[in-house]
């Protein structure tokens, strides 16, 4: 689905175009030349550990911070020179709930709606509607100090959606949430993209980026160290692995020879009778298993392990570190 506003945008294809963004905090180079191209209508994940420069990057893209070098545009509008236009195109959900703690949920949404130019009546209607769709109606009148972390995040996200912006920034939307609330948040984020919005989300969780994002940029020490689809990133680390646990370690020799013959690769055999072999084409598994049965080799366990983003992350950041120290 295409976002309703997209026809009036200067560049409706690229939601974010950032070139060589740099930000210093005193002597510390928090962001060191970040370049990003984010296509409209996707979920883009920015993945990195604490202090990698994710929030600073988002702050520059959402006009909160002025880059010290480089430039960025949102749907073709410059974040510095055309900041007011950019602000009409984005919704920001900060890492720490960007809602007013002292007010109730309704009052928060009402105020933000009024600031965005809605009339009193429209603002009331909009607030009620958003509270309803985020399951917050019951708690609407309570002050936020009585809200749980998940409720606060939901309200925060609701506040970002008042103007139905075509680009939504979510800075670590699930940090600190319990697993169930986290899954609910994921569903909500997927629905956003369903309605045509582009989402840029930062996360420290690899599985979150893997689950949600169409493309991922891995950031470490202020730089993008890898970029691509989750599949591409995993592929860059290596192929899947076939793991077999034999009933009897004595058969390991025969088994490994069979596998070597079938897959044409070297495999690793542990003393306990566990065989690991790289598996480029998962379609060959059936052949391997049939061959093993023909040799009367009994298996306890069969699994195909694809590399996780954790491994990707460790591999990339590890390589980077080696480069630094080399």
């Amino acid at each position, binding site marked *: 689905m295409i976002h309703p*506003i997209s026809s*009036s945008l200067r560049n409706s294809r690229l939601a974010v175009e950032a070139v060589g963004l740099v930000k210093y905090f005193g002597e510390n180079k928090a962001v060191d030349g970040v370049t990003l191209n984010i296509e409209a209508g996707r979920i883009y994940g920015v993945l990195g550990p604490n202090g990698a420069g994710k929030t600073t990057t988002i*702050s520059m893209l*959402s*006009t*909160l911070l*002025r880059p010290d070098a480089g430039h960025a545009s949102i749907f073709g*509008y410059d974040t510095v020179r*055309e900041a*007011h*236009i950019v*602000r*009409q*195109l*984005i*919704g*920001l959900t*900060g*890492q*720490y*709930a*960007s*809602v*007013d*703690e*002292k*007010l109730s949920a309704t*009052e928060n949404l009402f*105020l*933000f709606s*009024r*600031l*965005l*130019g809605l009339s009193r009546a429209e603002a009331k209607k909009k607030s009620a509607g958003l509270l309803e769709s985020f399951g917050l109606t019951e708690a609407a009148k309570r*002050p936020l100090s009585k809200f749980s972390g998940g409720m606060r995040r939901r309200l925060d996200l609701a*506040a970002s959606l008042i103007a139905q912006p075509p680009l939504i920034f979510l800075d670590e939307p699930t940090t600190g949430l319990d697993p169930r609330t986290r899954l609910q948040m994921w569903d909500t984020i997927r629905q956003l993209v369903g309605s045509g919005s582009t989402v840029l989300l930062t996360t420290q969780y690899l599985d979150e980026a893997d689950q949600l994002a169409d493309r991922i940029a891995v950031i470490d020490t202020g730089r993008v160290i890898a970029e691509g689809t989750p599949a591409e990133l995993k592929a860059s680390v290596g192929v899947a692995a076939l793991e077999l646990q034999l009933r009897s370690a004595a058969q390991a020799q025969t088994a490994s020879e069979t596998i070597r013959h079938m897959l044409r690769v070297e495999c690793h055999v542990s003393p306990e009778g566990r065989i690991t072999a790289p598996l480029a084409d998962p379609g060959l598994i059936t052949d391997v298993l049939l061959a093993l049965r023909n040799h009367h080799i009994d298996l306890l366990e069969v699994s195909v392990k694809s590399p996780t983003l954790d491994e990707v992350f460790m591999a990339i950041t590890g390589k980077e570190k080696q480069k630094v120290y080399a």
Partner: protein
Amino acid sequence: MLSKRPTAAQTVQQSLTMAYRGLLKVRYTPEQLVDVTVQPILFTLMFTYLFGGAISGNVQNYLPIIIPGILAQSILTGAITIGVQLREDMDKGVFDRFRSLPIARIAPLAGALLADTIRYALVTILTFTMGYIMGYRPVAGLGGVAVVSALVICFAWCVSWIFALAGVIGRSAASVQGISMMILFPLTFLSNAFVPVNTLPSGLRWFVQYNPVSHLVTAIRELLNQKVIGTDFWLTIVGGAVILLVFIPLTVRTYMRKA
């Protein structure tokens, strides 16, 4: 559909919305108003009975001098909290959202300052009520009191931009409080608010005569006690305007860069 910058009408509406936010917060935490409630009552009682005999011979003769002085002092003390409030607010996540919204940059500041009008009104009402109870009857009557109230509230609104700048610059609420008190104390006490100027040593007298607070106090006294709108009234208005011209751009720019 996409606009380059907010219009004047939008700026006003957004500032008023932010002011409404300030009032909502007062409703949830009415203890914010303790300073502007307790101080006018306590100071009026304290200073009048403490200095009345020494300066004017008796309390009744001192009232026309001290009530304008207390009014000026209390209202300026009420104005400094804006800095602390802004600092606390800006340290919270919600200000990130305000800054990411397509609203006029001045709106969060102007709104907070506008909301403080309720504080200034409270100071004015309480000071005059205390004066009335103690026997003060201004020559200018209720009309004069209304003009004076408008004058002090406008002046407080101007001065609060100075303290707003302190709030935007300061690193923490505590440091903002400290800076503001350092500005406030010399300005209010080294003026003609409590004592006649001719009792002061010459260096100090020079400072007191040029202190804008002295002009404000004199303007109030002339208005209330002589029903006169004199030079000091106009000087106070010009002074307020100068403060606005200097501090609004300075504060808004600093806020945009730093916040």
